[in-house]
């Protein structure tokens, strides 16, 4: 569904990604793990066109994404839940969701989509009139994911959804991601919390200083001594 082949991206003058190739199968959950600064976010930003790779090719459902503006990539059916959530803090929860459904011009459908998000995250319904900036970190993460769902993405990119959240909230978020995946969306998950990410995904890639150094089935990688030492703290 999503293929990166030999992608290299610079971030300013820094080489952030070097020759990265990966593949996400339709209907699966794949994960990209690695330490802080390994280039995980840059990989997602490259897919969305927020930064431009200077080499390599990114294909989504057979269509080339390089050089397509971000808003058109979003319209093709990819949603990114960015690192740090980036909810519109000065807008209400409801307005955030409406913006997530910006491309949906049919008001009735928009209402139905919002109801669906409220069903996945009932907490958001209680907070709908509140400014998004007043939500807790976990609620903001729910909102960021809910906002992404509004566009009915076929591919959902998640950047560090567990960052800074209490364990209970992390599980709630990941259960929601499972549900979203079961409902048909393919998921590419970027995580520092490798333990969790390997448990919740089928296939995994390990990124180190901008290069893919290991890849394979998540279950196998979780048993690999090198991964255990470097990322699982065992």
């Amino acid at each position, binding site marked *: 569904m999503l293929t990166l082949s030999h992608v290299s991206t610079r971030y300013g003058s820094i080489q952030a990604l070097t020759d990265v190739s990966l593949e996400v199968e339709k209907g699966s959950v794949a994960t990209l793990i690695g330490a802080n600064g390994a280039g995980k976010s840059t990989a997602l930003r490259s897919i969305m066109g927020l930064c431009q790779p200077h080499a390599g090719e990114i294909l989504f459902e057979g269509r080339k994404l390089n050089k397509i503006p*971000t808003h058109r990539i979003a319209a093709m059916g990819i949603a990114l839940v960015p690192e740090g959530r*980036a909810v519109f*803090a000065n807008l209400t929860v409801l307005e955030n969701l409406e913006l*997530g459904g910006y491309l949906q011009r049919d008001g009735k459908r928009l209402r139905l989509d919002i109801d669906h998000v409220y069903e996945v995250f009932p907490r958001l319904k209680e907070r709908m009139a509140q400014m998004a*900036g007043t*939500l807790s970190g976990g609620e903001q993460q729910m909102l960021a994911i809910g906002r992404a769902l509004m566009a009915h993405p076929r591919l959902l990119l998640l950047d560090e959804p567990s960052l800074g959240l209490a364990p209970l909230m992390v599980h709630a978020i990941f259960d929601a991601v499972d549900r979203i995946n079961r409902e048909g969306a393919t998921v590419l998950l970027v995580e520092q919390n490798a333990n969790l990410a390997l448990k919740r995904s089928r296939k995994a890639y390990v990124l180190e200083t901008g290069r893919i150094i290991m890849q394979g089935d998540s279950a196998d990688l979780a048993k690999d001594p090198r991964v255990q030492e470097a990322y699982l703290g065992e």
Partner: protein
Amino acid sequence: MESFLQQLINGISLGSIYALVALGYTMVYGVLRLINFAHGDVYMLGAYFGFYLSRILQGRTPYHLLDAALVMFLSMLGCAICGLLMERFAYRPVRRASRLTMLIIAIGLSLLIENAGQLIFGANPKFFPQLIPESHIKLGGLMLTNQQVIVLLTAVTLMILLNLFIYRSRTGKAMRAVSFNMDAAKLMGIDTDRIIALTFALGSALAAAGGILVSINIPGIDPLMGVMTGLKAFVAAVLGGIGNIFGAVLGGLILGLAEVMVAGYGSSTYRDAIAFLILIVILLFKPAGLLGKGAVEKV
């Protein structure tokens, strides 16, 4: 007391014009973090469009008010197009450059419009035709002209319309999203280039309205009329908190009132100085402006 009320009305009327111009500064700052120093010159262009259009259109419709409305609408449209051109050809090419580059372009653009204005329109002031014959309205002990009332009503109507647009419409919501976080807005599928262009168009149209409303009250127009008004409107936007829509309106009103009161009860020599005194005070004690907030982000 009556003289005070009279001054109050004059102040609000002047203030609402500053507010219209300040809105353009604040909206563009909101989406691009750019002080568009050429904005005051768009206000001047609005007055000149109005001047030439009046000559063509005056007396073409059976009502003076309709003439005036038509002149105003077409001038706003003309300035909206100027705003679009400015954005497309002066600012968009340097969007990724440093903010200083954009600022220097803004100053250059401003000088260009002012000098081209002197070349094309002539440097001498022109007399803005009287679109609506003056009549007086007695309100208690107050003496108002119908023009003052029209100026005030028009400015208030435009601000209400803008407010409805920004807070109720889908595009307005997108505009607020862009001004909060451009990348996140793109991720929602918002064509941010279009929203930025629209912001310039809207701001420029409001400036044109300001230019014409001023000319109805004070009919002398010249190619440099935008310099001082532009600066004052900029002060108004900073006073209210730049980037904040309500702040621009509040700042405009305070500035207009302060100026009229200083001229009325102090000395009119200082009427221009008060704006900059306010600027210095606000920058010293509340640099984010009255309604502006420091950027707070929750992690």
